[in-house]
């Protein structure tokens, strides 16, 4: 691994140089400082650095340095910094890892700062509640989202799809795939066989969840096999994206079927609609994950991202001030927009509304339309979730490629996942 090591060391040195270079200039004037670390994309990073500039203007005595990497590298770097007792003061947190970090003592509670530096007087209670672990607030919601089935409005119109995408059923969706493929030549949908987020909604419609309250696997063999069967039928009828694209795991966003013009429908998180539209010509619409004919609601609204105060934070007062501005300051929130999800402060939403771009309008309208069609937020995923997700995609790949039967593979997955969760305890 000599080549790899040398490069990472060089990259690390570069990053270290950059990191020390950035705050170096304001550091001369300021004797207080905070570090903010988030996972991002170019657009998000631009918005966030602007917000840092604004805070800097208001508080010249506090130097703020921002650090950002992509999602994949973020948790590697975060784990390394945690082990080295060198966490940034403020970090972006994800719902799936909130238990992991808060219960191991890497985060500090925010309760004592509410009303005492952290102004949450205009903050919806629902979104706030997602940040509680064992009765204490460890993470502040900085946006909410939900599952969404984005669709290419032009193709659905050409195919004459009339089902309402907010109330459509699994059968309606299959029929839409059929109509789109036969009338437009573009495949109806991405093949979602390997998408755990969609499998989760399927299981919730059956009255179960990804995990049980005690952290064991909630999916039954039947949940998994019926789900894989549904997609196998669409695949055999040649109504979904080709197998060789489906089995490429964690592919870059820009290689998605809708963006490549290969499919008309897909699945993602609702805050991603803005990013999806930026890469497409045809207008994007937003639908719900198709319902089971008589089922329970499968979707839920969840905090898309949090901001957390870490164990290693040095200037807590400054960090809380920064955090409070993030969710209240009109100038900052205007720049952040909906990029991280729907803000939980109604005043912020009202201020943003007149200036919505068309895709922002789509995502807000969607968010309003689903309010009474969603179920309760599940508990954050237990330890081992990352690995369960990998196992699902790996075993599902054998199903998609036809190397394993659905029933056999579903059994194997449930067994493998239970083993993983047992080991992760």
């Amino acid at each position, binding site marked *: 691994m*000599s080549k*790899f090591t040398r490069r990472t060391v060089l990259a690390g040195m570069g990053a270290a140089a950059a990191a020390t270079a950035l705050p170096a200039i304001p550091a001369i004037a300021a004797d207080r400082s905070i570090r903010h670390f988030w996972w991002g994309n170019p657009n998000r990073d631009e918005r966030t650095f602007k917000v840092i500039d604004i805070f800097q203007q208001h508080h010249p005595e506090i130097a703020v340095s921002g650090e950002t990497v992509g999602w994949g590298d973020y948790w590697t770097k975060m784990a390394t910094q945690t082990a080295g007792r060198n966490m940034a003061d403020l970090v972006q947190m994800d719902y799936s890892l909130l238990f992991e970090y808060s219960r191991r003592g890497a985060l500090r509670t925010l309760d004592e700062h509410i009303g005492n530096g952290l102004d949450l007087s205009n903050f919806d209670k629902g979104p706030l509640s997602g940040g509680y672990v064992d009765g204490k607030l460890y993470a502040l919601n900085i946006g909410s989202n939900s599952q969404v089935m984005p669709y290419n409005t032009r193709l659905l119109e050409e195919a004459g799809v009339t089902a309402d995408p907010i109330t459509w059923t699994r059968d309606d969706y299959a029929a839409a795939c059929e109509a789109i493929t036969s009338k437009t030549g573009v495949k109806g949908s991405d093949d979602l066989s390997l998408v755990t987020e969609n499998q989760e909604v399927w299981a919730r419609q059956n009255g179960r969840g990804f995990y049980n309250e005690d952290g064991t696997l909630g999916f039954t063999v039947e949940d998994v096999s019926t789900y894989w069967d549904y997609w196998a039928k669409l695949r055999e009828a040649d109504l979904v994206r*080709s197998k*060789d*694209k489906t*089995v490429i*795991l964690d592919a870059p966003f820009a290689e998605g079927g809708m963006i490549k013009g290969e499919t008309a429908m897909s699945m993602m998180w609702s805050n991603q609609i803005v990013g999806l539209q930026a890469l497409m010509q045809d207008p994007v619409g937003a639908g719900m994950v198709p319902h089971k004919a008589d089922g329970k609601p499968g979707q839920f609204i969840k905090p898309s991202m949090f901001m957390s105060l870490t164990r290693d934070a040095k200037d807590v007062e400054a960090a809380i001030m920064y955090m409070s501005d993030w969710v209240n300051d009109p100038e900052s929130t205007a720049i952040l927009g909906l990029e991280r999800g729907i803000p939980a402060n109604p005043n912020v939403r009202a201020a943003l509304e007149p200036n919505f771009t068309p895709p922002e309008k789509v995502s807000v309208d969607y968010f309003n339309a689903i309010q009474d069609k969603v179920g309760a937020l599940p508990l954050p995923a237990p330890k081992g979730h990352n690995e369960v997700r990998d196992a699902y995609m790996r075993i599902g*790949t*054998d199903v998609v490629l036809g190397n394993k039967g659905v029933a056999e593979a579903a059994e194997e997955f449930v067994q493998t996942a239970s083993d993983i969760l047992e080991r992760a305890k």
Partner: protein
Amino acid sequence: MKRFLVRNTPGFVFLTPWLIGFFCLALGPILASLFLSFTHYDMVADPRWIGLDNYLYMFGRDRRFWKALGVTFSFVALAVPARLIMALAVAMLLDKGLRTISFYRAIFYLPSLLGASIAIAILWRQLFLADGVVNKVLALVGFEGPAWISDPHTALYTLVVLAVWQFGAPMLIFLAGLRGIPRDLYEAAEIDGTPKWRQFTRITLPLLAPVIFFNLVLQTIDAFKVFSPAFIISNGTGAPSDSLLVYTVFLFNEAFKFFRMGYASALAWVLLVIIAFFTALAFLSSKYWVHYENERD
């Protein structure tokens, strides 16, 4: 002892930068990882001593460990001989005393310089996608290529082809070795009317044996440690169906994706032992097939 030090002082002085690096930067982490390999360590909480559990789990219950070993051995068994044969073949072509040799040498070495880069791995992924360049070229001549990197049966071969393409470093060493073979041996063989093939097996190969040995050891060690291309082509997952799950990708995921740093440390030590074993095997076997010119009989 004193004489030894005096005589070897210049050597140690030249080694100093490496020694400083080794003792200050490498040795600490190496010893720490040995300790961690006997612990449960998730990078957030403190390490917890669990004795041999990591090793027992690895050999007894972890099916992906065996899968990763299998993939890595397949890769080594295919890539090392293929790369060495390619390197030797090109080196012999270049040994013809061409005037433009330095130009060609540089051209053929280029992929090895580029090969370590992420960019090439990404390019490779694009080339071998189902609708990538390779299949488009195959389509021109009437073949319908498989979805190379999406098919568990062919994915590893794309990695092997990439490894073979980066034959530059062993080629340069072979070239130097070929230059060292006295020309008069070939002249004498020509006069005796020895066919080219026999010249190769009776003169070139035996006299080149030390260089072949050197390349074999280095390339084998390198191949066991293959990481970047497998990581990039499979988006870090080892997909499809773990067909690209080489040992280091498995280790990386255990460490930095599943936060099992103790287990990953144990994996790293097992890889060290495996590499040491094969290197020792090469050295032990070498006395039967490697002869040095200045050796006393």
